[in-house]
């Protein structure tokens, strides 16, 4: 699947969309959008009145043409939005081509088509095989190329047990051999759901969209009343309002702008998410993302880069920092953990001590075990050990050595500062403390500050002790933290926040995250995670980047903002349209009403036509905005409201005055009215 940003107007999308606009004229589809349905009925009525009218053919023909355009433009907007999704679906489909699977039955292998696989079947995949369906690795380890789903070319490791056991149908095994238990039903694989999602096939209206549709329908009903009652008012006043003119008034008043763009906004919101490699299981989840006000973030990988790094050497009394560094490096040479490597690197950086040859003939490396909880080296009669403070303390005291007070103090100070102290000792002599530190990701603090401005509370989840957690929390600038958190704690915390009325989002990848992912209002599962986690969440991040949660929230907010802004704009437009149409309707009988024609429109017919044309063209003009979403800046609700009210509220009042006048000048010059 290509993740290059598709240009907004790509001929391969636009041309089919024109056809789509006509197909969508089907009344059975139109009736789902009451605003545009009323417009369609208006267009039909006006077209019919061409044949019954006795005068003004040119005017009525033009009017009905523009009314049809209004409907078609709205359909076109929806078709373009869908077309963008379809383009992505097509590339996904290529990955779904039917493959042969090697089904394992009673340890006998047989070749069956992938489509014949049942949930619970076991299949074997070796290097070069395409994984036939979603499943869980139950045996072996393999590197898998998931580019067809994620667009990421680097292969990922999938292995049985643990949190990286889920594999996706359509991805390819590059090395080794795995046995996979199929977990998806036929036709309901991750890929199938993804295709359905981007195509909008299963698109259901979100709660917010439903509420907005009710508002727009009710307004349409009110304006229908306003227009229909105008007929008897006209009879009383001695004016005969013709059907085309009343239809023109009605169509201009009902919120066609937002009505026409509403579904395009919704589709493109999901589309934006997919472009960032996030799959949502429903539009509802995208919308909920905008409402999130509490983010639960795992410390590791989200706030800090994966591992702790050695940051300081704190020698004991009578020991130089150089000696400590040298001993620490020796003890870590065989330690392949990132922490061990970082000690080697730090010693090299600080004192230029080179990493010595590991294959020293007399070096005996002592690996870390759960019993001793330390590691080290025996070299030339020296016995160097490093380990956690409490285990080292008992090690030293067991050998008859003393555990110096200043070291104990240094250990405590390090813990308080959020660092992990490691004691280095030679024989029974304590050399000092190496401090390991969590490295907070660059720029994360600014991001949290932005979130705070948006009114979102960030909570860091970590297995660290409270002291360490507090220090990292302070450094990263999160609002709150949960130390020594178990998955059950997470679930409890989410429930507690929700009970207070908050909406909570979190990321997770392990099976034990699944309950919390399911409980959260927005649960983003990592694609590298287990199948259970991916099923429990309502979004999957294909890049497995926990920081993505922040972008997801922003996309959700932008979606809602776009709807609100265009609704406000659409309603505010009506003022200018009234000033164009009402004087035009009354002018013939009451010429004194002329001062109300504030735009100085040339004639009643040109005024009505201009308003209708503006009403149609504004839909086309706003398609890019509907698809891209309104500009989103992280700021407080009050500031956002202020800005958007000015732009879309006041702008919505003023723009049509200019637009209608310009169209009037144009059509008058062209002698169209």
């Amino acid at each position: 699947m290509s993740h290059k940003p598709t240009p907004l107007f790509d001929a391969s999308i636009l041309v089919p969309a024109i056809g789509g606009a006509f197909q969508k004229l089907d009344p059975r589809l139109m009736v789902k959008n009451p605003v545009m349905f009323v417009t369609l009925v208006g267009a039909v009525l006006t077209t019919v009145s061409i044949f019954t009218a006795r005068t003004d053919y040119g005017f009525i023909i033009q009017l009905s043409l523009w009314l049809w355009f209004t409907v078609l433009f709205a359909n076109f907007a929806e078709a373009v939005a869908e077309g963008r999704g379809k383009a992505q679906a097509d590339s996904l489909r290529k990955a779904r081509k039917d493959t042969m699977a090697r089904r394992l039955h009673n340890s006998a292998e047989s070749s069956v088509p992938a489509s014949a696989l049942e949930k619970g079947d076991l299949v074997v995949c070796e290097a070069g095989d395409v994984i036939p369906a979603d499943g869980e690795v139950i045996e072996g380890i393999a590197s898998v190329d998931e580019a067809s789903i994620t667009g990421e070319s680097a292969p990922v490791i999938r292995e049985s047990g643990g949190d990286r056991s889920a594999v996706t149908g359509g991805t390819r095994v590059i090395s080794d051999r795995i046995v996979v238990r199929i977990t998806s039903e036929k036709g309901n694989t991750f890929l199938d759901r993804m295709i359905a999602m981007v195509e909008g096939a299963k698109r259901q209206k979100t709660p917010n969209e439903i509420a907005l549709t009710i508002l727009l329908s009710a307004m349409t009903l009110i304006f229908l009343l306003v227009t229909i009652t105008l007929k008897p008012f006209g009879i009383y006043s001695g004016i005969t309002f013709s059907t085309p003119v009343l239809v023109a008034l009605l169509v201009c008043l009902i919120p066609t702008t937002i009505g026409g763009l509403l579904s395009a906004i919704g589709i493109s919101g999901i589309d934006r998410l997919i472009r960032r490699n996030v799959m949502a299981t429903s539009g509802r989840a995208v919308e909920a993302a905008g409402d999130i006000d509490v983010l639960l973030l795992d410390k590791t990988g989200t706030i800090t880069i994966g591992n702790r790094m050695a940051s300081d050497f704190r020698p004991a009394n009578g020991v130089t920092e150089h000696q400590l560094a040298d001993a620490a490096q020796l003890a870590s040479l065989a330690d392949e953990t990132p922490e061990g490597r970082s000690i080697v690197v730090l010693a090299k950086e600080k004192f230029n001590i080179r990493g010595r040859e590991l294959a020293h003939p007399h070096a005996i490396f002592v690996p870390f075990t759960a019993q001793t909880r330390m590691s080290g080296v025996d070299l030339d009669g020296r016995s160097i050990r490093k380990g956690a403070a409490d285990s080292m303390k008992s090690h030293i005291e067991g050998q008859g050595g003393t555990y110096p007070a200043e070291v104990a103090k240094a250990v405590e100070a390090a813990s308080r500062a959020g660092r992990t102290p490691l004691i280095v000792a030679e024989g029974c002599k304590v050399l000092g403390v190496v401090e390991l530190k969590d490295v907070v990701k660059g720029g994360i603090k600014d991001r949290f500050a932005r979130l705070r401005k948006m009114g979102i509370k960030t909570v860091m989840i970590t297995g660290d002790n409270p002291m360490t957690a507090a220090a990292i929390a302070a450094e990263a600038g999160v609002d709150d933290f949960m130390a020594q958190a178990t998955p059950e704690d997470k679930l409890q915390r989410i429930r507690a926040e929700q009970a207070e009325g908050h909406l909570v989002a979190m990321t997770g990848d392990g099976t034990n995250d699944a309950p919390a992912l399911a409980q959260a209002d927005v649960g983003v599962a990592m694609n590298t995670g287990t199948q259970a986690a991916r099923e429990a969440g309502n979004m999957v991040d294909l890049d497995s980047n926990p920081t993505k949660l922040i972008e997801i929230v922003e996309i959700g907010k932008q979606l809602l903002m776009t709807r609100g802004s265009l609704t406000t704009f659409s309603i505010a437009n009506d003022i200018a349209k009234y000033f164009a149409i009402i004087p035009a309707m009354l002018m013939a009988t009451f010429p004194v009403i002329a001062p109300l024609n504030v735009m100085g429109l040339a004639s009643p017919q040109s005024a009505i036509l201009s308003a209708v044309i503006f009403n149609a063209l504004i839909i086309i003009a706003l398609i890019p905005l509907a698809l891209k979403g309104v500009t989103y800046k992280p700021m407080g609700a009050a500031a956002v409201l202020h800005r958007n009210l000015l732009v879309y509220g006041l702008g919505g009042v003023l723009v049509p005055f200019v637009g209608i006048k310009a169209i009037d000048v144009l059509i008058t010059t062209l002698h169209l009215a």
Partner: protein
Amino acid sequence: MHATDWLQFALFLGALTLITKPLGLYLLQVLDPAGRTWLDPVLKPLEKLTYKLLGVDPRREQDWKQYTCAMLAFSLAGVVFTYAILRLQGVLPFNPQGLPGLSHHLAFNTAVSFMTNTNWQSYGGESTVSYFSQMVGLTFHNFTSAAAGIGIAAALVRGISNRKTNFQVRSPNAHDGSPNPTNLEVRFTLGNFWADLVRCTYYLLLPICVVFAIFLVSQGMIQNFDPYTKVKTLEGAEQVIAQGPMASQIPIKMLGTNGGGFMNANAAHPFENPTPLSNFFQMLAILAIGSGLTYYLGRMVKNQAHGWAVWAAMMVLFVGAAVTCAHFEAGERVFQLVPETATTEPTSLETRFTLDGNMEGKETRFGTFGSSLFATVTTAASCGAVNAMHDSFTPIGGLVPLFLMQLGEVVIGGVGAGLYGMLVFVVLAVFIAGLMVGRTPEYLGKKIQAKEVKLAMLSLLVLTASILGFTAWACVSDWGVVGLNNAGPHGLSEMLYAYSSTTGNNGSAFAGLTANTPWYNTTLGFAMLIGRFLMIVPVMALAGSFAAKQAAPAGPGTFPVHGATFTILLIGTVLLIGALNFLPALALGPIVEHFLMGKGGLF
């Protein structure tokens, strides 16, 4: 407007501002069944006795359906009671003039009118209803319809504010009679209708009315049971001067935004509104409770800034309306009432117009400003008392009261009705603009979703449909047009005004419309019923829906419902929705009339 007019206006606004907080605080006590007031020693026994007689437990909380049903049942009983009195008044006491019973359609119209807090009068008070009917049949409703309105507003506010009531429900199989603690049920309740009704009447309306009545008597208002006085005028003609128990009825007419006059001339009558001072305090009484309720709102939702923001939106609309009306009535525009041979200098008529303004249909003791302000006040609220003929206002001067009613009388508005009407607009404003901050719209932490939007729009739709629908019907029907005194756009304004007034439960008349006909009485009666109850039911459903919602705690991402931006947004929403719905009709009525008048066309 003269300097003295501005001074009077400033005094009025100042006084209204000053009483808002104390009244709001007092309302907080009155609307809490456990609240304490300084009148408790006197009124508490009476209150308890009333509950005992009604057989209600004031502490028993009701959900929205129970509350609404209680209110509807009470209203139905009231309307039957009054209908009976009006029909039978000929045989009832306190009828020194021997006035006969009312026709069935007038009795229906009048009973509905007073029960719905409208007080539309298709009749002239002194020539149609007896003292007994006034005191028992009508004044009763003046108190209770006002108290019910306040109760509905309070119920909505309770629903919005985050309060839950825990109910201990007795388990049906707990034979020992002890409440089963596992059956603790959370119900979303809105208060108790009977407690609200009784407490508002006893603690709020009655005491203020007693003091106000004494003040009005000091200004020259009458209070007696005498037969009408026959006098000889200086010219020797015979005149009948109506009498009656007026001071006991007028305070509640204003305070409860009822507006039904004791006399046909309403507050233009020298007995009913004797002095400029009585005029001032009557206007203040109209807006007092509505204004105080905004403070009550702020207190209840624990966001006083929100209460003041709603109040500010109301006040800005009010000041704008009052100044517009007064400006056009003061006649500072020069009207070209030029004779056919328009070659002469401006006529003396034109000069007089510029100096004194439009005095037609106005009392000299109030002047153009006292009349325009009264007209604005009475239609901003759903009062409907008048001290001048709105029919004789200039087209734009008359458009102001008409438009205020069409906005739903949310500019301070009727007691209770104004607040709940405004809160419907708040819900819509928050919904439309709330999306713009990138969250599901929340009003004070409670999400506005499909159900709330449906209910809010329903109440708006009902208002528009009733006003436009009935007017459209009337203006193409013989029964509608025959009642008109004036032709052309002014005639349309008269019909539009009648249905706007009744649907809005205002009750003021544009005059010029002979409404005491079976058709008008019946359609206007239905407009009143629709305007009251088809508004209240969705509003109460809204209250119930809000009550059941969990409130999200406020944060920087929360939609702000206070401050200038919100106030402007609210004003914009009210004006936009009002203007969009009624502009075409208004264009054919007062607006076209205004331009025609500029060319010398009169109707």
